[in-house]
């Protein structure tokens, strides 16, 4: 390791109480282990310094030598090497990490969860099957909810710091386990078992999930337009493209219209379209970040509209 690399590493550790050497950034992690540690730090401390080792090969090799630790991520707190992903996760679960970081471990209340009778039946059957395959060990339903609100449902054993929720449904009681971060994200979760396009499947609905850009197909959009011709359908393309083809009832999203839309009630449904659905996704995300929570992107854009709804709108 050359001197300037060493100085860079030492400087980062000296000047910041919490430093995470990771792959990518907390918002765009490039490796699952890095994402896990960043997610834990996001929860426990407001601000921390990150160093993206992928943007500098010298740092990437240097930090391994510096810490005598062969893997990334690596966490430093107050100048001390704490460890990699496994150690950080273990310390988080035991509450030790809170102490190291000087934050209080908030007690986690068991979340309120509702379970439909069809879901209770399906889970009961899955447990019975697990039991028949491995009669010796204990089996529980586990729900995992990651920072992006991706939900996982599995059968597993119990971990020491798990949060248990007992769900009584008509006689039989079912225990659902959450790790602590998942439990924090689970208040009001409902678990259902419904007929989907590819057979029956579990459906988890979580009221804590932040609003996302929803996708709408052109046929459903047509129905909405028929029902309400004044709905906000915003065309994010250029005037040139609009001259070639446009959907009746849409508005060009120019500066003026943007100001108008930003002034609308935040619950107003907004529909965005472009040529194929990519540019409009970005526009939709922009309005989502301004507090609108009924934001739709028209999948396939005006091209899909021409093919599936109105062949009189020319394709280009």
């Amino acid at each position, binding site marked *: 390791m050359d001197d300037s690399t060493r100085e860079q590493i030492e400087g980062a550790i000296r000047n910041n109480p919490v430093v995470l050497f990771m792959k990518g950034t907390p918002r765009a992690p490039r490796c699952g282990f890095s994402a896990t540690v960043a997610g834990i730090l996001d929860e426990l401390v407001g601000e921390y310094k990150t160093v993206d080792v992928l943007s500098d090969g010298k740092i990437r090799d240097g930090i391994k030598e510096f810490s005598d630790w062969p893997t990334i991520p690596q966490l430093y707190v107050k100048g001390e090497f704490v*460890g990699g992903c496994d150690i950080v996760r273990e310390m988080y679960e035991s509450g030790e990490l809170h102490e190291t970081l000087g934050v209080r471990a908030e007690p986690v209340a068991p979340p309120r969860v509702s379970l439909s009778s069809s879901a209770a039946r399906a889970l009961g059957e899955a447990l019975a099957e697990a039991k028949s395959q491995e009669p010796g060990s204990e089996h529980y339903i586990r729900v995992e909810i990651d920072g992006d609100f991706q939900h996982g449902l599995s059968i597993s054993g119990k971990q020491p710091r798990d949060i248990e929720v007992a769900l009584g449904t008509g006689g039989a009681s079912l225990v659902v386990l959450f790790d602590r971060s998942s439990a924090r994200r689970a208040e009001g979760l409902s678990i259902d078992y419904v007929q989907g396009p590819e057979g029956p499947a579990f459906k988890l609905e979580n009221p804590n999930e932040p609003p996302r850009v929803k996708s709408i197909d052109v046929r459903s959009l047509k129905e909405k337009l028929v029902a309400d011709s004044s709905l906000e359908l915003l065309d994010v393309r250029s005037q040139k493209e609009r001259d070639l083809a446009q959907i009746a009832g849409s508005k060009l999203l120019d500066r003026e219209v943007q100001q108008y839309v930003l002034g609308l009630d935040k619950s107003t449904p907004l529909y965005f379209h472009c040529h194929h659905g990519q540019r409009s996704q970005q526009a939709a995300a922009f309005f989502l970040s301004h507090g609108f929570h009924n934001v739709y992107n028209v999948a396939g854009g005006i091209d899909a509209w021409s093919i599936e709804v109105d062949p009189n709108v020319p394709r280009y």
Partner: protein
Amino acid sequence: MGSSDIAGAIRDAISQSLPGAQVQVSLGSPGHFSIAVVAEDFRGKSRVACQRLVYRAIAPLMQGDRAPVHAVDQLTTTTPGVSAP
């Protein structure tokens, strides 16, 4: 080298550095392994120190871009008589 050969190499490397250790290696996706080691050498040492002992033992298997061991998904280190977390 196939995944089970690499698992064997991991076991051998750890057993050589930490005589008497019980080593369990399980396979993840290609190049990914989970390792559980129970060893007397860990007694009284911090978690970082315990994991360093294991990482040092398998360092030759993790070096370079085409290393047989691409990532250790999970590494647990315990002393005999203590139940694993």
